[in-house]
């Protein structure tokens, strides 16, 4: 037993020694950028990418035909230029010559055709299949560096909606043939970094593509580390364990901004957050009631209390930063008296004095369904809103659901009201209005339908003149917000924090990880 005791003491001494050795074992990080993400990658096959982390990694490995500049304007990438046919239902891309995939094969028109057709292949079962199949009729290879898309109809937002999409990152056709189902972990693109290694839940390692067609990036390596706990991500950033982190939450903003050696960059996201009425419910088919409830939400105070510095108030279903944002949409500024008057007008009166309004013997009672942490302060804001409505004689409750259960109910339309956000890579209005509010739109979970609005949205897509498009979308937003189907709460800002050693890195939401010029200062 005495011997065993000595063994124990020795092991403790050895462990302590490792702690001390650790101090002298500082890692050399020159040329390596380490990025902390809250989650691990899921799939790196572009046709399957649905999450932010996989998208960030893939963005460095692959290129698109076109991309966004820092302001969210479309600019050419693997395509040098493109033009629409007169009718607007055909688009021809002229491709960059001499670009090679990481496996040495040539990027050409056949590769473009292959990648787009792969998204639409039922065997591949990509979540983007239906969207693309409904829009693209045929893809024709005109010559090695020219490819023509025949569309099912004119589409002024085709580049925004279909070309700069996660699914259309250009992947080497040879790699798909070579790796088959495993291509997901052997991503071969034309991008600035090559995929090197992946250890599940540990790291993804990318290395510089020396032959990158824009010129080799300065960074030698980029490593993505999944660190689920926020405090740990911040501690890693503060101790230099990582160099860059995304999604800085409001409560940490001030702390990080004040900290020496750390830089915080902000940019508006193309995002909207708010409360939606399920108009399938008889209760919410009354516009007056919807308006009354909208007047009962003090979005300025909510912004001030919950989202200081990380969000901007938005009034429409299109983000404030969009070229199509309509300043003049009906505003439902907080007005308790007006809300009460409208409720009364709609026939909701508290007759029995129990504090809750009734109409024809039915109580004004419903539930807001909210996710927990999916959107900034979703649960807290939903609870604050139900509380505020309580003082108007509305018996509102919040039902907080875990994401899987939440979307189950959302798709089945089994809810009264919902806290839902919508985020896109750019401010193109068709990316917001068409899926969310058009009759039968793929994200119109609210059963909302307005034929006049539908017509305008059709017109918006087929109109190529920008000025006319703006007018159309102005009108569309006007109609939609007048209907008070959606209570706009905020537009979210994208916030990143990085160490001062990371140089020449500019963050904006449409171009969040451009690392061609960035480098680590030793």
């Amino acid at each position, binding site marked *: *037993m005495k011997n065993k005791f000595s063994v124990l003491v020795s092991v403790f001494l050895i462990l302590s020694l*490792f702690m001390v050795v650790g101090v002298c074992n500082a890692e050399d990080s020159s040329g390596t950028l380490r990025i902390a993400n809250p989650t691990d990658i899921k799939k790196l096959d572009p046709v399957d990418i*649905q999450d932010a982390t996989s998208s960030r990694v893939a963005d460095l490995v692959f290129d698109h035909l076109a991309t966004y500049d820092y302001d969210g304007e479309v600019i050419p990438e693997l395509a040098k230029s493109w033009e629409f046919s007169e009718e607007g239902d055909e688009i021809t891309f002229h491709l960059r010559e001499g670009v090679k995939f990481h496996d040495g094969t040539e990027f050409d028109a056949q590769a473009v055709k292959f990648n787009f057709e792969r998204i639409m292949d039922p065997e591949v079962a990509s979540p983007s299949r239906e*969207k693309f199949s409904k829009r693209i009729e045929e893809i024709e290879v005109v010559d090695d560096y020219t490819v023509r898309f025949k569309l099912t109809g004119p589409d002024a937002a085709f580049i925004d909606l279909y070309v700069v999409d996660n699914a259309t990152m250009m992947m080497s056709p040879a790699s798909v043939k070579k790796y088959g189902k495993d291509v997901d972990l052997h991503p071969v693109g034309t991008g600035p970094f090559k995929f090197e290694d992946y250890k599940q*839940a540990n790291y993804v390692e990318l290395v510089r593509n020396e032959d990158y067609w824009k010129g080799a990036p300065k960074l030698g390596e980029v490593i993505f580390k999944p660190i689920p706990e926020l405090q740990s991500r911040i501690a890693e950033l503060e*101790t230099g*364990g990582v160099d860059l982190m995304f999604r800085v939450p409001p409560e940490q903003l001030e702390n990080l901004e004040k900290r020496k050696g750390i830089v915080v960059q902000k940019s508006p996201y193309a995002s909207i957050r708010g409360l939606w009425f399920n108009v399938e419910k008889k209760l919410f088919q009354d516009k007056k009631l919807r308006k009354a409830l909208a007047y009962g939400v003090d979005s300025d105070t909510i912004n001030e209390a919950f989202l200081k510095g990380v969000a901007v108030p938005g009034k429409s279903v299109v983000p404030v930063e969009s070229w199509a944002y309509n300043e003049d949409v009906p505003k439902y500024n907080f007005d308790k008296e007006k809300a009460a008057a409208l409720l009364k007008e709609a026939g909701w009166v508290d007759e029995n004095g129990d504090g809750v309004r009734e109409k024809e013997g039915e109580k004004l009672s419903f539930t807001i369904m909210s996710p927990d942490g999916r959107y900034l302060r979703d649960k807290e804001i939903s609870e604050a809103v139900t509380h505020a409505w309580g003082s108007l004689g509305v018996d509102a409750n919040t039902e907080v659901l875990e994401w899987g259960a939440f979307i189950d109910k959302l798709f089945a339309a089994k809810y009264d009201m919902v806290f839902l956000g919508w985020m896109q890579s750019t401010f193109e209005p068709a990316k917001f209005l068409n899926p969310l509010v058009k009759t039968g739109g793929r*994200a119109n979970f609210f059963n909302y339908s307005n034929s006049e609005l539908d017509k305008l949205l059709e017109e918006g897509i087929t109109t190529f003149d920008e000025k006319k498009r703006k007018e159309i979308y102005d009108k569309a937003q006007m109609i939609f917000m007048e209907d008070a189907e959606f209570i706009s709460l905020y537009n979210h800002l994208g916030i990143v924090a990085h160490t001062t050693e990371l140089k020449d890195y500019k963050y904006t939401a449409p171009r969040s990880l451009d690392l061609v010029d960035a480098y680590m200062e030793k």
Partner: protein
Amino acid sequence: MLTYIVRRLFILVVVVLAVTIIAFSMVHLIPGNPAQIMAGINASPEDVKMMSKKLGLNKPLYIQYIDYMNGLLHGDFGTSIRTGRSVAHQLLTRYPATFELAVVSIFIALSVSIIGGVTAATHHNTFIDNLTMLGALFGVSMPSFWRGLMLMFLFSLLLGWLPVSGRGDPYTLEWLRHLILPSVALGVGSAAYLVRLVRSNMLEILNEEYIKTARSKGLRETFVIYRHALKNAFIPIVTMAGMQFGYLLGGTVVIETVFAWPGLGRLMINSIFARDFPSIQGAVLMLAVSFALVNLIVDLTYAFLDPRIRYS
């Protein structure tokens, strides 16, 4: 003894079968469709249907279960819905991380609790005893995530001695440095439970007649305590430590999350959120087998500790 082990292993098979049925039914009872979660809110219902078909989720539940069991018998744990990769491969990469964390933690827990418990018992009702018990109370009351964050704050942020998170390259010096904080955070928690058990058992045994006899024979006090008393106090400690070890092998979600440790616990929680049925089942199965094996080993240890116990 051999017959006993064979019988226990046979029971293990029955337990595993029961676990697969329970796990399978439970995960299918949670609301949420994995294809829908995978496809996100951007996908159309048509795409979700197609994805369900691709994942084999459109088949009736009992067919899915038979398919799963059939695969299992052929050593195929299925394919993860979330990542599209083999579940067996996922388990094999995650399990070592959890295993090493559990082994080091239980080692820390046993060392701390034996030293602490014996010292407290031999210094019964003194300042040392009270201090040890206060420490144990503190340890039991401290939530593990807080313990983890405090350790991180002290050793990584303030002193800069140890890395904040991650596992490092396995079986290198870097890996050992990464292992220290999470295993101490876990080990101290288990130690807090065990130390009280060691102390109370020791107190009981130190009053036994045979201890007095040993002392009256003139044996050295350390010999009396560690050879005569501790060995006899060990059976409940081993039982409890076995339970703790089994619990640690299940992957400790909180500590693995705080320290971004790529173990089974994190795999399990991510799989639950994604309704990744094959991964959840695989992880639960792994956990059940580990737990049952640890229990078997604990039972066998009794015979070693107390020669009066014999299995037949």
